């Protein structure tokens, strides 16, 4: 790129995008999530109601989220609570399972023994009954007996159990003849209480079967309870099969189990709460010193270097405290040393200043006396006297500049800002430089001094800066006019000094501020500058919180721009005057292109390939996109030696928005043969009104420039 870096910075889109634009980087992750989701939804249905809702939901959550992000204690306690709750729940389930299994096993065994005994009794009872009434028993009589017998049997069997078990006799299979109605002890609803699955199993084979079930009672009885049912198919006195069931209610076991559950739940709750409290306490022990360290670190960084942590004991926290204190101590020591060094440096500068200046004064006065009397000398001595006086001048200004710069380096320079009208300063400077300009054959024109340009500034320093810039411009201006331009906008004022001399080679715009840098060592200097002028000027600008930037193109002159904040404590965001002047070759090219794009000053139309039928592509009509033009668009590098020829399509140009347009155009579409070119507005007369334009662009691009300036 042939432009200087300071000027081309606004042309690089990357620079500008790199500048933080987002108002705050501290939206919560949750919030972003919602935003993202909403964006999606917006894309689909575009509902503002949803967005409103999300905002409404998010707002009360924000402080909580922030607390969560910022409070490690809260996080640890919450995590402890969640994890201990999980452990307690797991433990509870295991313990309860164990207890239930144990209880049921014991109950099952007892029930089986009871049932087996009962079945045996029933069998014997039936066999006895068959033996007793064997001959007489036949027909309906036997059936009647069977019914009665079963009643008796159930009563008999259940009599020993009380509420510990119930006995139910059911008909086998689907046999449901008379006298086969279910019989049950203790208000049990036999058919409902015995699961049908168990009944089919009992029917299918011999042997005792068991199953868990719900024991249902008749209306008069108690509520249904869980129970164990053991059943067996037995022959009755008529040798007909029937089903005899023992029902063991698990009331007791359930009670025991719920007691265990309750106990466990209580214990678990206590454990969880206690663990939470313990975690809180433990974390507090660790977090408190950390917070203290953070607070003290903040105070240290705020400059209260004597702040120390309180250290008690010898544990890790105490070690942290000790290490922290040691760090603070060393820091304080180092800062003290640096301060001492700086003070010594300042003293040294001051002393050197005095020690050098006193003899220099004597020499100076002696030389002047000799110089005054040179007419009485022979030519050789007279010329020597002249040389002596001249070089003493140079030596003096060099010494003064050196001392000034070392004062900046030592941080001893102080700003004495007060409201100053820069127009007065400019007038004084221009008045002082006019004789030099006349000697060179040019003039100094001041532009933009219609209104007051007031800023809080140190007039002495600003005058020094401007004098330097103007004298430089005159000196390097090749006898052409120098334009001093004033501008004020927003919170900033600016003075730009434009010359049309040799300009700056690529990269020189950053180097001009280097100490003792000279554009061309071979070039004669009429005023014999020290080579420190611009360095001092830059420091003066910085002292004001302002910028001093340079732009230049080879052979096209250069522009130096001083931007100062309107009030001393304000930060600069942009400059009222663009760093690259409107009459630079590139801007002339763009301006001309903009006219071709249909009278919109900032719109640059770029040519399409004449052969293709594509519509002409236009750059979006913001000046920022004009500046996006790639660096390769240096006029000198293009055909037509700078005057960029921009053809106009016959039809009305269609404006397309798209960043790629410029790149494509600049890459290949600049052709001289293509249609008419609008004459460039090369006169400098159009400058004044242009100064007022495009504030946004400057505001955005200026910080990037500033960065490049600071980089030196």
């Amino acid at each position, binding site marked *: 790129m042939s432009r200087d870096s300071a000027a081309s910075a606004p042309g690089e889109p990357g620079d500008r995008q790199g500048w933080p634009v987002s108002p705050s980087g501290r939206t919560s992750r949750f919030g972003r999530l919602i935003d993202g989701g909403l964006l999606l939804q917006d894309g689909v249905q575009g509902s503002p109601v949803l967005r409103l809702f999300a905002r409404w939901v998010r707002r009360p959550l924000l402080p909580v989220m922030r607390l969560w992000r910022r409070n490690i204690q809260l996080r640890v306690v919450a995590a402890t609570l969640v994890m201990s709750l999980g452990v307690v729940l797991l433990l509870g389930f295991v313990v309860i399972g164990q207890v239930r299994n144990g209880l049921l096993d014991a109950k099952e065994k007892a029930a089986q023994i009871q049932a087996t005994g009962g079945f045996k009794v029933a069998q014997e009872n039936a066999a006895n009954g068959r033996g007793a009434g064997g001959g007489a028993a036949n027909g309906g009589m036997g059936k009647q007996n069977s019914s009665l017998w079963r009643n008796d049997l159930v009563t008999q069997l259940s009599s020993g159990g009380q509420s510990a078990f119930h006995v139910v006799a059911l008909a086998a299979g689907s046999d449901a003849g008379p006298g086969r109605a279910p019989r049950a002890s203790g208000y049990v609803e036999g058919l409902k209480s015995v699961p049908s699955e168990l009944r089919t199993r009992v029917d299918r084979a011999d042997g005792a079967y068991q199953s868990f079930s719900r024991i249902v009672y008749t209306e008069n009885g108690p509520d249904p309870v869980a129970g164990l049912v053991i059943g067996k198919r037995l022959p009755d006195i008529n040798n007909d099969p029937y089903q005899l069931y023992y029902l063991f209610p698990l009331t007791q076991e359930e009670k025991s189990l719920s007691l265990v559950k309750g106990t466990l739940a209580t214990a678990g709750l206590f454990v969880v709460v206690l663990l939470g409290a313990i975690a809180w306490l433990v974390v507090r022990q660790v977090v408190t010193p950390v917070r203290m360290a953070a607070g003290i670190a903040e105070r240290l960084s705020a400059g209260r270097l004597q702040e120390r942590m309180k250290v008690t004991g010898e544990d890790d926290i105490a070690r942290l405290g000790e290490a922290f204190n040691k760090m603070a101590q060393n820091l304080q020591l180092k800062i003290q040393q640096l301060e001492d060094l700086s003070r010594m440096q300042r003293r040294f500068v001051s002393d050197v*200043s*005095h020690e050098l200046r*006193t*003899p220099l004064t004597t020499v100076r*006065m*002696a030389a*002047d006396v000799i110089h005054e009397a040179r007419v009485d000398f022979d030519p050789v001595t007279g010329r020597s006297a002249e040389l002596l006086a001249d070089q003493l001048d140079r030596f003096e200004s060099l010494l003064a500049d050196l001392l000034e710069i070392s004062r900046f380096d030592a941080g001893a320079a102080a700003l*004495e800002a007060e409201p*100053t009208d820069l127009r007065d300063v400019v007038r004084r400077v221009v008045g002082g430089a006019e004789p030099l300009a006349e000697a060179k054959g040019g003039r100094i024109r001041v532009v933009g001094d219609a209104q007051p340009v007031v800023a809080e500034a140190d007039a002495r320093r600003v*005058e020094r800066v401007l004098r330097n810039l103007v004298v430089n411009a005159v000196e390097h201006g090749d006898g052409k006019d120098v334009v001093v331009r004033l501008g004020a906008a927003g919170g900033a004022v600016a003075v730009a000094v434009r010359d049309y001399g040799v300009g700056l080679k690529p990269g020189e715009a950053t180097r001009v501020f280097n100490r003792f840098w000279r554009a061309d060592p071979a070039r004669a200097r009429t005023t014999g500058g020290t080579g420190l002028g611009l360095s001092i000027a830059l420091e003066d600008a910085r002292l004001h919180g302002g910028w001093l930037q340079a732009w230049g193109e080879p052979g096209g002159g250069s522009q130096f721009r001083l931007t100062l904040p309107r009030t001393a404590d304000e930060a600069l965001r942009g400059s009222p005057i663009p760093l690259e002047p409107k009459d630079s070759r590139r801007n002339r090219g763009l301006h001309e292109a903009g006219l071709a794009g249909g009278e919109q000053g900032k719109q640059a139309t770029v040519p399409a390939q004449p052969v293709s039928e594509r519509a002409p592509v236009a750059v979006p009509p913001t000046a920022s996109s004009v500046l996006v033009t790639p660096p390769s668009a240096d006029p000198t590098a293009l055909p037509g030696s700078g005057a960029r020829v921009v053809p106009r399509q016959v039809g009305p140009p269609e404006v397309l928005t798209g960043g790629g347009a410029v790149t494509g155009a600049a890459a290949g579409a600049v052709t001289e043969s293509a249609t008419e070119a609008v004459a460039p507005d090369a006169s400098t007369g159009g400058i004044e009104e242009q100064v007022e334009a495009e504030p946004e662009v400057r505001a955005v691009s200026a910080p990037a420039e500033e960065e490049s300036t600071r980089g030196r």
Partner: protein
Amino acid sequence: MKGRVLVVDDDTALAEMLGIVLRGEGFEPSFVADGDKALAAFRETKPDLVLLDLMLPGRDGIEVCRLIRAESGVPIVMLTAKSDTVDVVVGLESGADDYIVKPFKPKELVARIRARLRRSEEPAPEQLAIGDLLIDVAGHSVKRDGQSIALTPLEFDLLVALARKPWQVFTREVLLEQVWGYRHAADTRLVNVHVQRLRSKVEKDPERPEIVVTVRGVGYKAGPS
């Protein structure tokens, strides 16, 4: 024209050179190299102007300046190698009328000295009023309600310059030219310091000046009488 100049400087070479230049310009220089002896020499020679180096063995220049100012309004021009704000302001506040930074050109020095001495040439009888002050230009006195206020010649000149044109706002540069005799704009700190000093003497409340009013961003003007 009277031209006794007391040079207080410890650097003998410079003092001698100053002597050569001053004699060449028609002044009568006398020399003292030690701060402690400066006051005695001052009383003895009764100079019309004192050239005072800031850095001196014994009493330093600031102290000497204060002592001389305590008993006389004779113009004091400081020679200083330090152009730092603090040094200059301290020097001016201790009572110096003007200062000149080393290295200086002989002509510059002579111009300053002449500017300081020129004041003693006869002024026309003139009565001025500024605020509630009455100024007798010829009699070199300032009175408030019959009470006279002691001002150094420079402070008096400053007050007179303001009082002569109460309608005009004086920029610091204009005051430098009129009161100090600078042809080119120089350090406006001179003006600031002397205005402060003048206010401390003539204002009832120096925090809220009524005689010498600041016009923000421009300069000073005389208060309404």
